[in-house]
């Protein structure tokens, strides 16, 4: 469980290294066995299926999509209406007005999207059980990995990728948001962080935004003042072993100010980060995430940017949610998930100017949004 306020105060001789999160996105690991039925396709496939369902032929559907939503008679064919969310199209109205299926997905029928299968997915064994619907982490080879968010998303083309490719929607939003969003911070405190040992890992939000480097990535070595707001302060007991940083499970919460991450929160938070020689961290953050949080990210951006079938994801997540049972309805409110996380060295300071975290190392040449501009590893 989270160390919280009960964590032992850091030893006076301890060192604290500061980091700023330079990239975070859904951890994807597409494989040949991920989508045996062929997957859910891309935006054109999703729209085509809807038009077919509304009675259009395949050729007509493709012409409408190619014409920006206009049919052969010049009439606008509203994809959302076709999906049945408006009274005119036979869907249910919302306060008498047609509504987007993204905002009120429960008004739409479940399209029954294909969910991801296969052996591998990033993440952690969150429930302590190895069951047939669990995955194996491709890097750590941990068994019993719970990652039902991957099941919900992994068969849309935009998620059928692996690093260094980042899901399109999350990539552009992060690249846009970090110039204005308070940065997310991590720190690691221990007696000797160059050796194996027990550590304290802390997450905070900053009052400052990230700085860009010449590649458009995140500049390491910058200074961030920690936001004293306790809503974004989470502390964990952790361990460094063979340059791998892990934590004891607990609750994590980070307030965000972006179009995508309004908040990032997990229960049973797990972490597995490699501590690179350049001073940076990279690896997997996982846990149970309120599934409506992630759906909210997608709905705000819409289907054009998200390139998913929003009602399909909504129903899939509701079906696959595997934690946080509502005491009244019994419905699970959280879903097992895994995120790829990178952080670069940074100084941390308090609002009074006291430096409480040191920036150690020069960081990677390509970081954050610029990471996929680095030469591919051979």
């Amino acid at each position: 469980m989270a160390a919280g306020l009960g964590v032992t105060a850091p030893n006076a001789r301890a060192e604290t290294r500061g980091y700023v999160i330079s990239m975070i996105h859904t951890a994807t690991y597409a494989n040949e066995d991920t989508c045996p039925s062929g997957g859910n396709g891309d935006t054109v496939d999703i729209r085509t299926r809807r038009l077919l369902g509304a009675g259009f032929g395949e050729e007509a559907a493709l012409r409408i999509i190619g014409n920006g939503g206009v049919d052969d008679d010049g009439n606008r064919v509203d994809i959302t209406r076709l999906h049945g969310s408006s009274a005119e199209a036979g869907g249910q109205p919302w306060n008498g007005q047609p509504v987007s299926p993204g905002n009120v997905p429960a008004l739409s029928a479940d399209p029954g999207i294909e969910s991801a299968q296969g052996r591998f997915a990033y993440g952690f064994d969150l429930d302590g059980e190895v069951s047939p619907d669990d995955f194996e982490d491709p890097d750590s080879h941990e068994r019993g990995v719970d990652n039902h968010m991957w099941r919900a998303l992994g068969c849309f083309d935009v998620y059928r990728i692996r690093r260094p490719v980042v899901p399109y929607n999350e990539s552009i939003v992060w690249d846009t948001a970090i110039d204005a969003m308070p940065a997310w911070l991590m720190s690691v405190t221990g007696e000797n962080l160059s050796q194996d040992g027990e550590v304290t890992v802390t997450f905070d939000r900053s009052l400052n935004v990230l700085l860009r480097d010449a590649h458009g990535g995140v500049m390491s070595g910058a200074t961030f003042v920690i936001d004293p707001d306790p809503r974004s302060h989470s502390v964990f007991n952790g361990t460094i072993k063979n340059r791998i940083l892990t934590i004891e499970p607990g609750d994590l919460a980070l307030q965000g100010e972006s179009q995508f991450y309004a908040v990032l929160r997990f229960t049973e938070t797990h972490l597995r980060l490699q501590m690179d020689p350049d001073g940076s961290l990279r690896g997997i953050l996982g846990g149970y995430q309120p599934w409506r949080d992630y759906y909210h990210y997608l709905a705000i951006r819409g289907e054009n940017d998200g390139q998913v079938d929003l009602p399909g994801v909504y129903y899939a997540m509701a079906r696959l949610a595997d934690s946080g049972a509502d005491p009244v309805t019994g419905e699970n409110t959280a879903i097992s998930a895994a995120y790829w996380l990178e952080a670069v060295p940074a100084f941390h300071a308090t609002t009074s100017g006291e430096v409480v975290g040191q920036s150690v190392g020069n960081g990677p040449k390509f970081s954050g949004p610029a990471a996929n501009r680095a030469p591919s590893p051979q």
Partner: protein
Amino acid sequence: MSAPRGYIRWVARASMLGVCLGLAAPSVVAEESALVRLTPAQYERSIHDIFGESIQVDRGIVDPGVRENGLLALGARKLTLSAAALERYESLARQVALQVTDDRHRTTLIPCTPVAASAPDTACAAQFLSRVGLFLFRRPPTDAQIQSYVAMAGSASDTLDDFYAGLRAALVGMLVAPDFLFRVERTEPDPAQPDTYRLDGYSRAARLSFFLWDTTPDAELLAAAESGALDSTPGLYQQIDRLLSSRRMEDGLREFFSDMLGFDGFATLSVDASLYPKFTKNVADDAREQTLRTIAQHLLDRNADYRDLFVTRDTFLTPALAAIYGVPLPRSQELGGAVPWVPYRFPDNDPHVGLLTQISFLSLHSHPGTTSPTLRGKAVRENLLCQRVPPPPADVDFSLIQDTSNPAFRTVRQRLTKHRQNPTCAACHRMTDPIGLSLEVFDTSGVYRTTENGAPIDTSGTYRRQHYSGVGELAPLLRDDPAVTSCLVNRAFSYGTARMPSDNELGWLTETRTDLVEDGVTWRDLMRRITQNPDFYTNVAD
């Protein structure tokens, strides 16, 4: 648009001949006038002082000029103005004139209202052009000039049925006139010294103003010129005191040091982003500003000794600069707010000490992908000590120096040591390399390092027979070198007069150097000594 006769002659000469208007500084012909072209900053500042800060000036249009004997200010007297450059000046003039006469500005900048907005008004045009001409030309325009510009305004107003369009045409003519683009320094017989010449009052005013404030003379200075006050010692000293006590001294100081330190190089600075990802365009801008802020605070706010700029740990940082220097900089930047400048003192155990370890110096004097002890050492010798380092011979083999992957020569010190075995190269490299090697712990972008290609960096050397282990020990040796003061004094005098000192003046400069070394090299004291020296108001080199 028609133009005054003088303007037409000027354009024709420049266009057809690509004429060298700067002309070499006269030697014995002391009565000759001299022309010194305004720098881009002087152009912009003049426009703002005359018409207001709201007039946009694209200073990038103005050619920064050529460097001569270490200063752009010296090249400004020997400039060839091409037809293309004149076209750019005309384009800029049109931009300025359009703004001055637009609806927003005309009510405040034009002191009269025409009888009819669609017709010429000779009286109103003359009133405006006479007043503006005084400030643009830095002396009252002649009656013939005024008549010519008023006629031009009238002709254009008549043709275009627009009084302000006519005024605009005349103003463009003034803005491309040599009387504005160049400081026309005129001399007159010196009544105190027969057979010698001195600058006339208006030329004195301009020289003083551009030297100390880097801008056109203000109304009070022009009035002092008109009254003859600048020809008397008390009157001159009164104006010097006034200028020296102004906050605008910082403008003059910044432009002088920008010139002396070669900051025009930032316009073409190239740093390889794939090797130095922290070095962004903003960092380059910040680095330049950091050094100028450091100097201004040291010399003006603190009235401290110039030599201590070599050892000062006080500076200003932005968040991005701090990230490169590797130091924490807590700041309360509001989200979306302006980049904050934070006063900062490097700790005593920090490797950064003095101007030489600032990013501006380190990056300007490096190659895009590697450091260059030779370029850094050469910059110290030439820019700060006023010593001349000859260019390399044409047939030098640089392959060894440039091969950073040779396992036998992992550090640049090793490569340069080998290179110096060539006796042709040794003489100059012995001057430059030891100083530059002391800075090898800073890469091209200014990031601190201790190794190169895995090999430890040795920053030790000898300067004026004294050993140092690194720049921290070299910096005090440089500070105590009399050449540092001598160089500053000579450069400041040359910058202010836009000419090299004559042999006779060298004696005064040496005395000044000696006095300053004794008393302390403070900026206002140096400026006062130079501007109170009668030689400052002459145009003769020898």
